[in-house]
């Protein structure tokens, strides 16, 4: 113990009482209590949106001076674009919703002792869902279910189950077994252990899976048009089949912008939803 610390003791500060007590006991000092820190820096908040604004502005300016022939005008008129965009968002949101309510509970179930043996089988199916080319799967589904949004949605969902399922399983399996034993040891019921310890600790990995699924879904939703599901894919295919660049470019740019926006929102959610005690580095 240094002279300085000893001399500090002579000062009668109320708040150094604890430090003194620990000093005296010779325990290593604790890491300092971190001041509440803002979780999201300004770069993270502004960079992606700024890029999106620039991209969309550039596209808009290009359209303003471009001369459109009747065919292109026709394809873009009457709120066709906003309708396609809205359909696309709907496809993404609905498919992600179903991916979550299927994959997360399934992942939880597959890590329970009673169902652990079924994990390889389930993972094989999830892998098949992703390994099958989405367009092939969609074609098959259309033959089976007929043209429409339902077939498209099922195709998108099958494609995105895997990342969420495997991340849920990985997240739950990564939990320290001695921690779970401690949870049971202090008297938590199996459901309590799951809700209060296992899931909160697995949140970061599960959210990473959800983010991957969201971005995948924005991409695969462009294929919905082949099954009559609408979406921005309509603009892209119209542009290609009629050889009209502006239509094709608009469809592509909007898809890219939507994917980036969704990814950015998901990254914010990841940061905000991660349990506070788990953040690394101060």
């Amino acid at each position: 113990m240094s002279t300085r610390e000893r001399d500090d003791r002579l000062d009668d500060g109320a708040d150094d009482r604890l430090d003194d007590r620990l000093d005296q006991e010779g325990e290593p000092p604790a890491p300092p209590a971190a001041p509440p820190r803002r979780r999201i820096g300004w770069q993270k908040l502004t960079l992606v949106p700024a890029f999106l604004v620039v991209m969309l502005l550039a596209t808009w300016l290009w359209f303003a001076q471009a001369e459109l022939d009747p065919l292109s005008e026709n394809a873009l008129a009457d709120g066709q674009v906003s309708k396609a965009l809205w359909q696309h968002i709907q496809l993404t949101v609905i498919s992600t919703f179903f991916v979550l309510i299927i994959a997360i509970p399934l992942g939880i179930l597959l890590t329970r002792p009673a169902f652990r043996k079924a994990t390889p089988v389930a993972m094989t199916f999830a892998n098949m869902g992703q390994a099958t080319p989405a367009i092939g799967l969609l074609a098959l589904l259309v033959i089976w279910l007929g043209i429409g949004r339902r077939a498209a949605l099922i195709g998108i969902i099958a494609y995105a189950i895997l990342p969420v399922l495997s991340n849920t399983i990985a997240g739950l399996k990564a939990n320290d077994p001695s921690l779970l034993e401690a949870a049971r040891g202090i008297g938590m019921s199996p459901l309590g252990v799951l809700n209060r310890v296992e899931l909160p600790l697995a949140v970061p990995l599960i959210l990473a899976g959800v983010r991957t699924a969201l971005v995948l879904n924005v991409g695969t939703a462009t294929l919905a048009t082949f099954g009559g599901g609408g979406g921005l894919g309509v603009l892209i295919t119209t542009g290609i089949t009629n050889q009209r660049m502006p239509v094709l470019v608009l469809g592509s740019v909007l898809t890219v912008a939507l994917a980036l926006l969704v990814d950015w929102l998901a990254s914010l959610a990841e940061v905000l939803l991660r349990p506070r005690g788990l953040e690394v580095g101060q």
Partner: protein
Amino acid sequence: MSESHGAAIELENLTKRYPGSASPAVDNVNMEIKAGEIVIFVGPSGCGKSTTLKMINRLIEPSGGRIRIGGEDVTDIDPVKLRRKVGYAIQASGLFPHMTVAQNIALVPKMIGWPKGRIKDRVEEMLDLVGLDPGEFHHRYPRQLSGGQQQRVGVARALAADPPVLLMDEPFGAVDPITRDHLQDELIRLQHELHKTIVFVTHDFDEAIKLGDRIAVLRERSHIAQFDTPEAILTNPADDFVSGFVGAGAALKRLNLTRVRDVEITDYPTVSVDDPLQAIFNRIRSSGTNEILLLDKRGRPYKWLRRGDLMRAKGSLARAGTLVTDTVTRDATLRDALEAVLTDNTGRVAVTGRRGAYIGVVDMETLMNSVHELLEADRLEALEAQHELEEARAAQTHAEQEGPGGEAKA
């Protein structure tokens, strides 16, 4: 404090057999643990001591036998309910990293449905009990604590719902030796206040001696090699296995069994930093000793002042004297005290009480006298035990010679 005291634990023919293995992991353990005592399970790795402990709160379901806590048979009750009544602390604290210290401690009281206000008061009380400032530590997350502090919170969590029984599975195994020492002292102090029944698993025999009222030395399959007080095990090991486990240096280990509170703490002349310089001068002159102990504002030992120190430092208290480098509490073992006396060049060590306040001193002479007395007493006891053994043997031989008609030996 309206704490509940300990409850007795009885293990009867407790057995654990894992499917697919020929011999049981825990074989027929019978044990009675009295209310309010600390019993240590000690033994080599893989001897089943941890398994035996976990069967008490049925984290591992026994395959045979009964468990009774406070007279109530808990072998078949709902394990979740049982565990809420039995405190459980493990190695590396087992705190949940996504909950604050307060949330961790509040878990069990919340589960058993205490009202909010009571839980809040209890959390503060528990933090204070384990020596952490509630205001400072309440909102911290486990990773913002040192290993020793985490372990303290772990113990606070285990005690939060005021269980009569506390199970501790190598709780201090993962902290550094110095911190472990402090945590052990702390546990002894807590037990003086709380009188819980504590079952404690360790593979460190020194820890067992320091903490245990009784020690169960376990060999493979949790067979009890010896179940007795630390003194008896040190002076009279039941067999080669136990003496092998006790290891060398039994005389030094004996020092671990006696605490500073059991020996004579002598008074020593002291002054406070608040005293005027002249008063300090007078006190040194009138004390009749070479040195005098300077206490800080809160009555804690601060410096040793020799005659002339003040002169040399020109009357400045901040520069005069030598700092007190080490102190012991009343719960410290004589071994700690000896260590401190040997390292301190004054040949004595200050004894402190609550919040580090000065109580008295222990010097070399006191220590030597107590050690001689201790060893003499042990020798007598061992002689007596040997004598009894010989008598028993003689009686046995006698009975054998007399034939089956004789009375069975006592």
